[in-house]
């Protein structure tokens, strides 16, 4: 029911949400007027996506209230959300590749009340919708055959229907060129005129200033307030996005960094990912940070070096000698380790014990020539590493699935420490890890670097990367956009390079 009394289309107040022990949102407020374009900003992991997922019904809030047109709503799933007129265009495309454009656009409305489908009408309607958006896509084409840009358009078309009240766009323009972006903006203005409220999430600040009326900044799951775009500028927004207290989390870096690089990457270009022409070097004892926004190619670069992705060109040098890493087997053979950002899927073996997890990278010192494992040696090796990394578990036989995130991460690290790696790449070292374990992981990274290991840390957490790295490379759209020496470390500088802007 429309309540003309309420000034706001949407009021989210006091929203909190935690996943297990990790608190993602704390007491967040968001108010959006009718026919307003509202920009939602924040670093990676600030909680923007989670907030939108609560709005659309993917996640359920722990506390707080959501009012739509002055009436409290509690969507239990995305279907509820859509019924209420809340439509979201996610960053990850959610189209069904094997269906046609038209089928995709009307997918969520299929089977609602009719038994038979009128394909002719559906295709016709979809074509009209796409044409009205000003794009040229055949509604009967199979989605698999579309370009990524066209897919994004279909995704947007899918979210727009006559009963849409709130439209959420999460980084919609990452794949668009300027003309497509302009077309999208024109459409958003049209929707705005129809009274639809739009929540626009983007890292591109210049876009915000072109289209948004109001901006809200989220930081570490807390909103730092909203203000009209007319009252601020890029610097003002960046100030809102950073400026948090730096806790005493990070170890003192007292390592003597060597002179000749131990590890070097030259003009590395990927075959199947966006990574191109990446060059850098790491000196012994140095912790090299790699920053950048999600999707800028950081993880892909790590996997490329490690041989998990295919290379097109470029070379890798270890101790001055060129090495080939065609597969992870080669990389491990050269004593390069990778701690994946995706701990549960790629990092650890959840159903296996701590002992079996840690031993898996290197059986040579603990087994005979015929491959029989010397259990005594294995135990003492594993228990030693558990003690060194302070892995909290009753014994080495506990299954890793029963450990906390922090302890799981330590197990993933221990795997590479057991082979005395020369190079360790750590992707998001503390994602989903509590503060206590964070401090331990930081000092561990420090210790490993002290031993002369080249450590490369990829992180979206800016205070973290500034706290532990000696030098930071910032990636933007698949390559290294800039390098920051320690004296130039600041969140603003990282952010500027991340969005492809020069330093001030």
């Amino acid at each position, binding site marked *: 029911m429309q309540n003309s009394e309420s000034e706001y289309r949407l009021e989210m107040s006091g929203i909190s949400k935690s996943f297990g022990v990790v608190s993602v949102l704390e007491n967040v407020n968001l108010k959006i007027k009718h026919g307003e374009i509202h920009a939602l900003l924040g670093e990676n992991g600030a909680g923007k996506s989670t907030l939108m997922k609560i709005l659309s019904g993917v996640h359920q809030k722990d506390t707080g209230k959501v009012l739509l047109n002055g009436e409290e709503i509690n969507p239990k799933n995305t279907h509820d959300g859509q019924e209420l007129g809340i439509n979201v265009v996610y960053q990850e495309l959610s189209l069904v590749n094997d269906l046609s454009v038209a089928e995709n656009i009307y997918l969520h409305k299929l089977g609602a009340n009719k038994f038979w489908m009128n394909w002719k009408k559906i295709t016709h309607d979809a074509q009209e919708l796409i044409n009205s958006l000003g794009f040229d896509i055949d509604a009967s084409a199979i989605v698999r055959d579309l370009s990524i840009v066209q897919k994004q358009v279909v995704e947007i078309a899918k979210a727009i229907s006559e009963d849409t009240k709130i439209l959420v766009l999460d980084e919609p323009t990452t794949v668009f060129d300027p003309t497509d972006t302009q077309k999208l903006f024109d459409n958003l203005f049209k929707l705005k005129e129809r009274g639809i409220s739009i929540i626009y999430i983007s890292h591109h600040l210049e876009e915000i200033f072109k289209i948004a009326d109001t901006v809200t900044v989220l930081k570490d799951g807390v909103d730092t307030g909203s203000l009209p775009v007319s009252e601020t500028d890029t610097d003002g927004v960046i100030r809102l996005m950073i400026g948090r207290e730096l806790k005493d989390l990070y170890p003192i870096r007292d390592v003597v960094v060597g002179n000749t690089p131990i590890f070097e990457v030259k003009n590395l270009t990927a075959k199947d990912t966006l990574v191109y022409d990446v060059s850098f070097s790491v000196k012994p004892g140095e912790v090299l940070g790699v920053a950048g926004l999600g999707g800028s190619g950081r993880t892909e670069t790590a996997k490329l070096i490690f041989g998990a992705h295919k290379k097109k060109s470029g070379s890798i040098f270890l101790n001055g000698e060129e090495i080939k890493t065609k597969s*992870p087997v080669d990389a491990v053979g050269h004593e390069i380790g990778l701690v994946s950002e995706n701990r549960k899927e*790629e990092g650890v073996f959840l*159903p*296996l014990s701590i002992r079996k997890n840690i*031993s*898996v990278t290197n059986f040579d010192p603990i087994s005979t020539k015929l491959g029989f*494992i010397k259990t005594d040696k294995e135990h003492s090796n594993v228990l030693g590493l558990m003690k060194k990394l302070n892995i909290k578990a009753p014994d080495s*036989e506990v299954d890793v699935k029963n450990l906390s995130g922090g302890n799981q991460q330590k197990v993933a690290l221990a795997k590479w420490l057991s082979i005395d790696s020369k190079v360790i790449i750590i992707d998001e070292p503390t994602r989903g890890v509590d503060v206590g374990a964070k401090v331990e992981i930081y000092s561990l990274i420090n210790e490993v670097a002290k031993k002369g290991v080249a450590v490369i840390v990829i992180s979206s957490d800016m205070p973290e990367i500034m706290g532990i790295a000696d030098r930071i490379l910032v990636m933007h759209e698949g390559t290294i956009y800039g390098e920051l020496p320690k004296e130039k470390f600041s969140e603003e500088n990282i952010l500027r390079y991340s969005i492809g802007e020069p330093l001030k």
Partner: protein
Amino acid sequence: MALTLKQQFSSPGGILKFLIKHNTIFIFLLLVIFSAFISDVFFTSVNLSNLLKQVSGIGIISIGMLIVILTGGIDLSVGSMVALLAVTFAILINIVVLPVAIVLTILIGFGLGSVAGYLVAYQKMAPFIATLALMTVARGLGFIYSKGSPITFKTPGGEFMSNFANNSTLGVPNIAIVFFIIVIIAMVMLKYNVFGRLIIAIGSNEEASRLSGIKVSKYKFLVYAISGSLAAIAAIIVASRTNLGSPNMGMAWELDAIAAVVIGGASLNGGKGSAINTLMGVLILGLIGNILNLLNVPSYPQQVVKGGIIIFAVLLQRFEKK
């Protein structure tokens, strides 16, 4: 793990936990006790040795199935392989000396398994599809080479094998001894050897294995090759028992082997299962058949009971997880 039996029993609900954890052995013992009460002939040495002889062939291919399933795969070709390899062995034993016939049969088994391994590991074919195709191919080849009828052993070597397969040592059937040795080797390899450790790792998380520098393809290839070799050993045993190789042998054995592995608590997603529990699974399946035979239950109801037991065993394992 570190808890002793006594501690396990004294903890609250300890006995129940213990029984659930070792449910396969528990079901097995229950069945044995039940069988002993219900039939006078069950505990006779003739019956027990018959039982062991019956399960040995399927038991051996079940061990191969186990290691394939541990990697998260499946091998549907083993039943047909038994037929093809039994025919192969019968042909070979009539033209070459016995040791050569045995070695060649096992090598051919390894080679056939390698085809499945190659398709799965290096061509990334779904294990179900690759081995389904090989199942048909192997059965067909079995009929082609035997011209559709059984091939009997005609040489002294054949006579020796037939004696070996039908006799016992210290009261235990020789072929059961072969089966038990294979179980023990599998047990040791899975528990104390790098090979076993790595195939379990691959089954529990293939991507993490790859990113840990494990040669995933090589091990996936090997498990199918080993499964093929074990099918060859099973083929030699069943052919020797009947003194002939027939293309009709091993019909639907792959399904019994899968059932035995699953009753033994292995997960079809890979990463979980043990040789001793698979042995229990094989014995449970064999026991059900045996006791129903002793009770003169016709073979059709037997199949219904078998299916019921599989469902019961898997439900019990779900309970174990909670």
